[in-house]
């Protein structure tokens, strides 16, 4: 088991963002975290990625109770926020993050070529299109060949072509994946299993097939 969440709660002041989140993620499993805006999807993945701590509950990731540096070395995160330095070039961004993961320059070249950014590597990121920034963000997340990749609404702001290209890339991923979305079709297309969250609680955990009828049933 790569990830195990048991009765996770998270409060921000008086606001309870997560009330009861429990699910597990196995090796090489693809899991969609589905739910309407404000349901708690992003808070859940921020806890798993170590950006915030849960108020209550038990989190276990790669067999550890704490998201420390050794855990972070084994995961990659792609978000709707690209996590990139706009005033650095694409290559400089990759170089900086590679230094944090102790990854060499060959891996940077390999990823930038694979994602079609090698020719524009010396351009400032602020001059990249939204699609290019998202591809660079994916390249950054794959630097360390992660065993777990977390994608937090990565299609936000992407046009149809960018979305298609992203889905092609995702279909080639071999690692375990958590993919948050509020789009039923995206969840069905990318992941074999879906966890449906509503108002900070898991209301469905099962197959991604026939999600529309499941969604209508549990959301009523």
């Amino acid at each position, binding site marked *: 088991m790569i990830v195990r969440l048991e009765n996770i709660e998270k409060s*921000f002041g008086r606001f309870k963002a997560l009330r009861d989140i429990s699910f597990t993620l196995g090796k090489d499993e693809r899991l969609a975290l589905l739910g309407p805006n404000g349901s708690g999807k992003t808070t859940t993945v921020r806890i798993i*990625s*170590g*950006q*915030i*701590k849960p108020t209550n509950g038990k989190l276990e990731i790669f067999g550890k109770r704490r998201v420390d*540096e*050794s855990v*972070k*070395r084994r*995961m990659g*995160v792609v*978000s709707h*926020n*690209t*996590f*990139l*330095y*706009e005033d650095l070039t694409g290559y400089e961004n990759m170089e900086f*993050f590679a230094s*944090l*993961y102790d990854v060499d320059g060959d891996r940077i070249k390999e990823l930038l070529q694979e994602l079609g950014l090698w020719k524009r590597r010396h351009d400032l990121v602020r001059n990249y299109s939204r699609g290019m920034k998202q591809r660079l963000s994916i390249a*950054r997340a794959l630097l360390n060949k992660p065993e777990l990749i977390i994608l937090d609404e990565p299609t936000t702001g992407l046009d149809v072509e960018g979305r298609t290209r992203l889905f092609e890339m995702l279909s080639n991923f071999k690692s375990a994946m958590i993919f948050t979305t509020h789009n039923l079709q995206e969840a069905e297309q990318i992941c074999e299993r879906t966890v449906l969250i509503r108002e900070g609680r898991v209301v469905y955990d099962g197959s991604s097939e026939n999600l529309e009828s499941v969604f209508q049933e549990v959301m009523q």
Partner: protein
Amino acid sequence: MKFLRIAIKDLRTEFRTKGTLNFLFLFAFLSIMLFSATVGDPEPALLWVVFIFAGMLGYSRAFLREVETGTLDALRISPVSPSSILFGKIVYNAAIMLILEVFVIPVFMAVFGIYPKNVLLSVIILTAGNLAFVIVSSSLSVLVIKSRARELLLPVLLFPIVFPVIISTVQAFTMAVSGNLDGIQGPISVILGFSTATLAVGYLTIDYALIE
């Protein structure tokens, strides 16, 4: 009379938030306190006002920029310890501070006609004082990044905390400039002790400050 409506709106907002007023009053009172510490020789204090004003504008930017661009989250998800992030920001701010000193000190001395009797000691004291200021402002800026009024909150927190360093640096710098070094160990000890203590507190609290 629409200009009056704009002015009244601004005054109403200001009296509600008191953001600008707090900053102005703090800066004004700090200047008075600074000059009171250097009776008869206000130039050294004036130099510190320059550094404080520049530092207030600049040093907090290292963290705040990461918050504004969302890249602080990129550091949070990377295999890098919170203390490394803090020390990285301190080193960056210290480098900026040294660049500022290289240009400001000679210009200030030329404009005010100050020629220190002990040039090396004067520069070391200024650098040590500035370094303490960098450590305090870098450590404190982490604590205010979650606040909406962080740009204004930082000076409010910073001034009272950093005040002993400012006074000690002004006193030690005044002694080094005049060449009268009797009792200079006192203010220098305060600067060094304060820097070490703040660095230790920053190191111990950064984990809690950075991860929500």
